[in-house]
């Protein structure tokens, strides 16, 4: 596998991670489904995993970058597995709405495992680590767009976490945007 093909596959992987984060924002803003603290940490896990893929795109593929993606995904999978185990016993309830029969934390766990598997498979191809020249401009558009979107989503999550949790730790089941309740007296989210 050439370095260029590896970068293309990394770009597609990062687009998949970006898509997960965009869908999470859509669920939060469109359906007014506020994320729980553990859900916010799962988003951070996706960014940690995507970070390794982004480094592959910016500096060229290296085993250490895949390592970051795998470790980030493993941390994220620990967080999502904890939430899955909370609701795995029949009758123990769930958090949020199901999408295609599975809740968001279950989809998260599946995606984290996919990132680990994908990165492990990519590590099998040694030729991608040969020194490669700079990417031609036409091959840069998708990778750089994916990295820019990851950066934008990271900034969006800073604002979102600040709005939901304020400056401290998050309430277990947020019922509104704490920062507006506390600082401006506004209630933008759905009322219980």
């Amino acid at each position, binding site marked *: 596998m050439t370095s260029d093909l590896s970068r293309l596959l990394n770009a597609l992987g990062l687009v998949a991670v970006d898509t997960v984060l965009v869908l999470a924002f859509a669920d939060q803003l469109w359906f007014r489904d506020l994320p729980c*603290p*553990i859900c916010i940490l799962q988003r951070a896990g996706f960014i*940690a995993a995507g*970070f390794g893929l982004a480094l592959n795109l910016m500096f060229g593929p290296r085993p250490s970058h895949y390592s*970051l993606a795998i470790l980030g995904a493993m941390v994220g999978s620990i967080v999502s597995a*904890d939430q899955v185990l909370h609701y795995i*016993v029949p009758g123990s309830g769930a958090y949020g709405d199901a999408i295609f029969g599975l809740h968001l934390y279950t989809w998260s766990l599946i995606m984290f495992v996919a990132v680990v598997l994908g990165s492990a498979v990519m590590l099998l191809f040694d030729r991608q680590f040969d020194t490669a020249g700079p990417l031609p401009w036409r091959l840069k558009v998708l990778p750089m767009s994916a990295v820019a979107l990851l950066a934008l989503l990271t900034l969006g999550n800073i604002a979102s976490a600040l709005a*939901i949790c304020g400056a*401290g730790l998050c309430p277990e089941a947020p019922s509104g945007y704490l920062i507006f309740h506390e600082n401006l007296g506004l209630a933008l989210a759905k009322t219980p």
Partner: protein
Amino acid sequence: MMSLPFLLFACGLAAAWTSRREAAMGFWVAGVLVLLVLFRFHATDVLNLGL
């Protein structure tokens, strides 16, 4: 507090964008450590698995 890991990852991406790879990886490590600490604070319920 919950925005701290995102802030560190954003700093890491900014460092990577300006070609400072080691700094980017340092911010990533810091972000993951903060993520784990926050998880420790929030994962306080005992799992109801009855093992």
